[in-house]
């Protein structure tokens, strides 16, 4: 319970700080609208050919709906990948890291708390993006499989969080030059099917894409949101995300704890 209250205080702190930059908050919501409009017109250009693309037909045949779900999920996955390392780096640079580490709160909770606002805010932006698609551009969204949706979203969060914690470990140790985030992020955009169906990729590359959590998250969320498919159709994706979580989360926590120990020995915990 006390950990939840500490996390709440982090969220409260960062919301207050973000709201003190009002123009930035307004612009970021406006950017979501601009993104939706851009892809709406892009999909207008593809009207007439959409039906002739079998890999798109698998997801309902609307490029607008396909790309908007891709963007919403990738926004969130990117945030999960970067939030932890960015929060550590920001706290090191602003000088608040040391002050938080000498309190009774364990470092893991400090890092999770520091990333919480970014994760929550990005989730909100993703929902706004999908909401705009549904309400303004009449994009069909099926929410009746909401229990499965919650499971998929939860596993997407936990599996990408594992990668984010790995990345934070790199920042604690090396301060800059985290190789993991850029690699995972770049490969996800290329192979997971954010803006084009992964089925258009060569078969071996499609197999390679299965090692990325975003591939499974996109597949499952498109099936559920765009087709209203029954839970049994996303079993494979759920298992994939579960494996990433079950293997990745403990490993990432062990790696992070080791990084912190090394940084304490080097005396570089709060350096940047």
């Amino acid at each position, binding site marked *: 319970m006390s950990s939840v209250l500490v996390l709440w205080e982090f969220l409260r702190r960062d919301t207050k700080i973000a709201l003190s930059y009002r123009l930035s908050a307004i612009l970021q919501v406006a950017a979501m609208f601009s993104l939706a409009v851009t892809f709406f017109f892009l999909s207008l250009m593809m009207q007439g050919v959409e039906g002739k693309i079998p890999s798109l037909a698998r997801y309902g045949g609307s490029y607008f709906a396909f790309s908007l779900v891709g963007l919403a999920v990738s926004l969130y996955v990117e945030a999960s990948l970067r939030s932890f390392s960015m929060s550590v780096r920001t706290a090191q640079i602003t000088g608040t890291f040391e002050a938080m580490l*000498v309190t*009774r709160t364990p470092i893991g909770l400090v890092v999770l708390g520091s990333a919480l606002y970014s994760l929550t805010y990005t989730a909100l932006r993703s929902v706004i993006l999908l909401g705009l698609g549904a309400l303004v551009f009449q994009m069909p969204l099926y929410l009746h499989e909401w229990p499965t949706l919650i499971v998929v979203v939860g596993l997407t969060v936990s599996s990408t969080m594992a990668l984010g914690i790995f990345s934070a470990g790199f920042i604690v140790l090396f301060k800059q030059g985290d190789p993991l985030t850029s690699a995972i992020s770049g490969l996800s955009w290329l192979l997971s099917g954010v803006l084009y169906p992964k089925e258009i990729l060569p078969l071996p590359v499609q197999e390679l894409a299965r090692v990325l959590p975003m591939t499974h998250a996109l597949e499952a969320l498109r099936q559920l949101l765009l087709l209203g498919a029954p839970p049994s159709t996303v079993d494979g994706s759920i298992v994939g995300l579960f494996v990433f979580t079950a293997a990745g989360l403990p490993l990432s926590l062990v790696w992070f704890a080791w990084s912190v120990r090394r940084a304490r020995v080097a005396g570089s915990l709060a350096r940047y």
Partner: protein
Amino acid sequence: MTPAIEVVGLEKRFKKRRSGRQLLTPWRRPAPTVALAGVNLRVEPGELVTLIGPNGAGKTTLLKILGTLITPTAGTASVLGVDVVRAPAEARRRIGYVLADERSFFWRLSTRENLRFFAALEGLRGRASVERIRALAGLVGLTEELDRDFQDLSTGQRQRLAIARGLLADPPVLLFDEATRSLDPGRAARLRRIIREILVDREKKAVLFATHDLGEATALADRVILMAEGRVDAEGSMEALRPRIAALFAAEASAEDIEYERLFPPPGSAPSP
């Protein structure tokens, strides 16, 4: 009686980063920087000890080890019997670390919000947090500034806020790292009175106060520990140590003067090699 702070044979060596040329000879390790070279010290509950020494003497490294931010290379350090390496979380429950760096606050939050956040990290919430913040603001003279943004506070006010933050959890052991650095003489004297009369004499807290200000050490301490080059050079009352401290600081100043004159020779004199 269990000492408030006990440090035995504490050593800290920092690895040096290799220069570009040294990367070509990876089998040769650069000599480490020795920050602490076998420090022994003891602070009793209710005692105020000043750690004095020139810059680079190892004072901050010692405090950071006690604050669990740095792991020592050898030796042990414990706070009220709790080893800071083996049980860092337990040790932090017993310590209040006054970090004087003004960057360690959230500039766009108010004084109250900053204290509320750090109080939550110290396990205080609800009414207990509100009352503690009010009491500490009164203690350090920041009651009127509670709703002002941190960025609008003066340097001295920020320093006093740092002190209030260190006291939030009401810990039995307090570490001050040059806590009066940016205070005007009046405020610094008031802070020293708070430390001496309220925290030590009344509340019986143990205080380890690092400074390089001789006047401050004279005004504050029961006992002075003089540090130089990572070692405890001498220990005792300020009166007894004054000649030794004065000699050490004079030697440091003299070395700096020589270096300054080498870099910026007086007009007309021949430049040093």
